[in-house]
Structures are given as C-alpha cells and as structure tokens.
C-alpha cells in the first residue's frame, strides 16, 4: 500500500507541498492495477481461455481443423426448427414484453393505492429461473392441469395444450411463460428510467394541451430511450439463452437453440457440435447487440 507515495519518490524535484484544498483524484496507477489484477487474471482464465478453446473445439475434429461439426449441426433434423422457434419466440415476445412492461411502469408511476405491494409482486419473476417458470406454467397447461380444470368447470372439453401436434397452443404456452418470467426485468429497468425523468416535462406538455398518448409518444418515450435501449439489448441477448422453459413445458417438442446445445452435450455426448452451436448463439447475440446499438443511434440522430 505504498502506492500513493510512489509518484512523489519518482519526481523528487517537485516541491512536496500539498496542493490547496481537495487533493486531485488520485491517479495511483500501481495501486489500482494491484486492485484490479485478481479480477483480470480470473476473467482471462474463465472467459478468455474457454472462448479460445471453444472456438478450437467447434472447428476441431479427429484430424485437424474441419467444418464437419457445423455440417453435422445443420443436418440435424432439430436444428432448423430450433432456430425457427427461437427467432419466432423472440420476434413475438419482445414487443409484448415492452408494451406490457411500459404499461406496468406507467401504472406504478401513477401511484395507485398499494403500489409498493404491486411493485413487489410484479418484480417476483425477476428472481425466477426459466426452468422454474416452465414448471410453474406446467401446472396450468398440463393435460390434467388448472386451465383444463377451469374449462371443465364451465362444461367445456379439455384441450391438450402441450401436445406435439398442437403447435400454436404449444408456442402460446411457452410464450406466456416467458412473458410472465422476463417482463419483470424490463419493468424494473423502465421504472428506474421513469424515476430519472423530471415530471416537469410532461406537465409542461400537458399545459400546452397534449393528451396522454401524445405526451407518452413525444415526451416520455424519447426521454426513456437509454433505458429502453439497455433493456432491449439485455432482453434480446437473454432471450437467445432461453431453453429450460420449453424443456419443462414440452420436453423435446419445442426445441430452442440453447436446448439443442444441451442435448448435443449431455444426450448425444458430442462436445464439438455443442461448441459449434454455442458459437452460433454467441455470434447471433453479438450481431443483435451491435445491430440494435446502430439502429437506435441512427434513429436518435436522424431528426436533428
């Protein structure tokens, strides 16, 4: 911990007098490096090393570098359906989640009676894993579950919601479970974003006669852009990683890409193809994040 003295010792020709008032922000390079060094070593070992070996593994085979793993991956009958399902789920789910989360955040901001209880209940799924969410909704959608019990009590015939040949209802079940679980994250980020917007802007717009919708569209949403951007990138990257919801609800009937990685690794015991799939997930996540950043930045600069 001798670091703060080090610069003085290195430059003895400077007067040792203390600067007036508050000392400048310490720029102790060596102390700081000492403090962050463990984290850098740790991250290099557990991020850098696996990344490199993952790429090697994906292109690795019995005889040197090959793309055989990727062609095996593509030829697997589940691959394209898992890609299709993942993309369809994201495209349908993200808009629903954002509209719902925004509505929830605006409701909380209107401070209804009991708003802190509402906030607590609406935030609970934030700490629920996708496996648990799948199991929770299994009680609802399974053949002899609560939804069919409800239908039966109205005298209606039960429906096998999760059956292999009933794709729309299977997709709907996974979608509802994911909307239930992951909207909370967007909700909390948007609530935080709303808190940082002064009410004056909206009140000013109200004074000039703007109704609720035009205040939302022209005042609140543009000011929320940074929060929405964060939530959108985070949510999309996390959405690509969803798999246990579908596994818990439908078994293999609704394959998702990460679920396929799991199947290739644990079921089929082929780490090379599993690595290839993992690389695809990473590439798609990165491209999406960069794409969003570019898209949102272009839009924000366009009107000016």
């Amino acid at each position, binding site marked *: 911990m001798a670091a703060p003295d080090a610069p003085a010792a290195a430059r003895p020709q400077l007067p040792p007098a203390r600067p007036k008032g508050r000392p400048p922000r310490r720029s102790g390079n060596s102390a700081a490096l000492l403090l962050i060094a463990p984290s850098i070593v740790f991250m290099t070992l557990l991020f850098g090393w696996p990344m490199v070996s993952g790429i090697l593994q994906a292109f690795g085979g019995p005889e040197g570098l090959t793309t055989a793993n990727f062609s095996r991956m593509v030829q697997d009958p589940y691959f394209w359906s898992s890609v299709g399902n993942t993309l369809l789920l994201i495209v349908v789910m993200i808009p629903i989640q954002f509209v719902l989360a925004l509505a929830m955040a605006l409701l909380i901001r209107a401070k209804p009676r009991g708003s802190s209880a509402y906030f607590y209940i609406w935030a609970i799924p934030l*700490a629920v894993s996708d496996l648990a969410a799948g199991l929770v909704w299994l009680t609802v959608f399974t053949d002899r579950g609560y939804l069919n019990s409800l239908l039966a009590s109205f005298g209606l015939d039960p429906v096998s919601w999760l059956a292999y040949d009933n794709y729309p209802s299977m997709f709907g079940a996974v979608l509802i479970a994911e909307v239930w679980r992951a909207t909370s994250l967007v909700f909390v980020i948007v609530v935080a974003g709303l808190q940082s917007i002064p009410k004056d802007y909206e009140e000013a717009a109200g004074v000039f006669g703007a109704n609720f919708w035009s205040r939302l569209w022209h005042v609140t949403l543009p000011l929320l852009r940074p929060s929405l951007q964060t939530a959108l990138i985070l949510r999309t990257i996390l959405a690509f990683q969803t798999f246990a919801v579908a596994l818990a609800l439908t078994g293999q009937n609704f394959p998702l890409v990460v679920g396929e990685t799991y199947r290739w690794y644990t079921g089929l015991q082929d780490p090379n193809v599993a690595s290839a799939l993992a690389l695809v997930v990473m590439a798609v996540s990165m491209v999406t994040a960069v794409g969003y950043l570019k898209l949102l930045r272009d839009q924000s600069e366009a009107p000016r």
Partner: protein
Amino acid sequence: MSHATTSQATEPAARPGPEVDRRPLARRRRNRILLQAACILITLFMALPIYLIALAAMSSRQSLQKFPLSFIPDNFSTETMQTFLQSTGILGGLINSVQVGVFTLVLSLIVGVPAGYAVARFAFRGRDPYQLFLLFTRALPIVVLSVPLAQLFLQTGLYDSVLAVVLLHTALALPTTILITASVFLGVPRDVEEAARIFGCSPLQAFLKVVMPMAVPGIAAASIFTFVMSWNEVLGASILTLNQRTLPAQVLSSLAESPLAYRFAGGFLLVLPALVFIFFMRRYLTNMWGSTIR
C-alpha cells in the same frame, strides 16, 4: 328560516359550480378505478401462477390425480413435498446449491470488491477499456463458456465438483459485482475517507473501518443478486457436473422420467427463494438496474 335564506343565498353561487366542476372529478374517480382494475389484472397474471404451483405442491398425490383439480386449498398435505425431498439427489442437490451460492458470493466479493473500489476511486490508465471489457463479458452467453470449461475441467480434474460450478458462477457474477460495488463506493463521500487518513488511519484501515461500513448495505444487495443468479443458473451447472448436481440441474436432468407431482414440488422449491429475495431487495431493485446496467 334563517337557514333557508342562507342556503338560498349560497345556492345560486354554488349551482353553476358542480355542473362545471364535477365532470373532471368523476373522470378522476373513474381513472382511479380503471387504474386499480389494471393493477389488479396484472397482479393476477403475476401472482396466480405462483399460487397455483404452491397449491399443487401442497396437495397430496391422490388429490393431484383428481380431475378437475380444486382451486382452493381444501386438502393441505406435505406428502408431495416430502416425497420430492426424499427422492435421489434432491437433498444433496439442495446442499450443493446452497454451497455453490455461498462460495460464489464470497469469491466474487473477494475478487470484485477491490476492483470495484479501484474503478470508483482511481483514474488509472486503462479504466475505460476495463469497464468496456466488463460490459462485454456480461453479454456473453453462458453456453459459450460452459461447454469448453467442461473440457478444461475434465483435463484438470475439477469436473463434477462444487468448485467447478463456483468458478463458472463467479465468472458470470463478477462483472456485475464489480460494476455494482463501483457505484456503491462512488456513493461514499471521499471526504470521510480522507478525514480518516488525516486522523492516522492507513489506507487499508480507512477502507475497512470507514468506507466498508458505509458501503455494506449496497454490497449486501449485490451479494443477494449473486446468490440468486447462482441459485437459478441451470445450463452451466448441468454441463459441468454429473453427480454433484445443484438443485436446478438435478431437477432438469430427471425432468423427462419424473412424475408430475415431482415436477410441481421441484418448481415450487425453486420459486420459493424468489419470494424472499425480492421482498428484501425491492428497495434496491430500481437503483441497481437503473444506474449500473449501462
């Protein structure tokens, strides 16, 4: 009669009032009712599934066989939960999950708190690239790390141990821990630290005796999040272990061949901590996700 005259006298003045004024009031009341209705609707959507899985997990196996299922808790029983807890690997998985969570929390604090302090207090060279690097690692999907790590751990003999999962979870939690602790330390005024130094504390003493006590609530919040992340993480834990499964990994691996009652009980046990965590964390949630995530 004087009453009548006064009321008559006030009436002409009051009469145009209600006709103009009551409509916004009624609209306001209607809006309040609509607001409550919307809130209750969303609360039903969020809370009803949790109620239903609790109901299913607290029903006897026999009453789960009935159709239609009852929506009210009329035959409370711990049979389903007991059977679940006694099935192979569950108790061990529970112990492993708690161990992994606690060790992950401790390790990520040991590595993360000094780094967070450095980010908050020093303007060192490479600070911005370092922060960017942290944000980048947070965006990496877990799958990308898990599969290669499994191979590496197989070679080094770490495979299928609590430590293997702890290392993976710490790697996942560390960026968040560093960014959150940095923002916590930014909230501790530098002046108190400098005052401690003037009164003769060493930098380490000043940190431990003055800065840490002020930062503890924020750091505790960050720790709870680390634990929740570790408790919920299922893919990496399933890939890195075979016998030393964590609870979610155990539930996932026996999903296909297990009866419905087992799955309901497992789901309920996995959801239960969320109710407690979020209750204690609800004040910190917006600070945490709002300020540090960017």
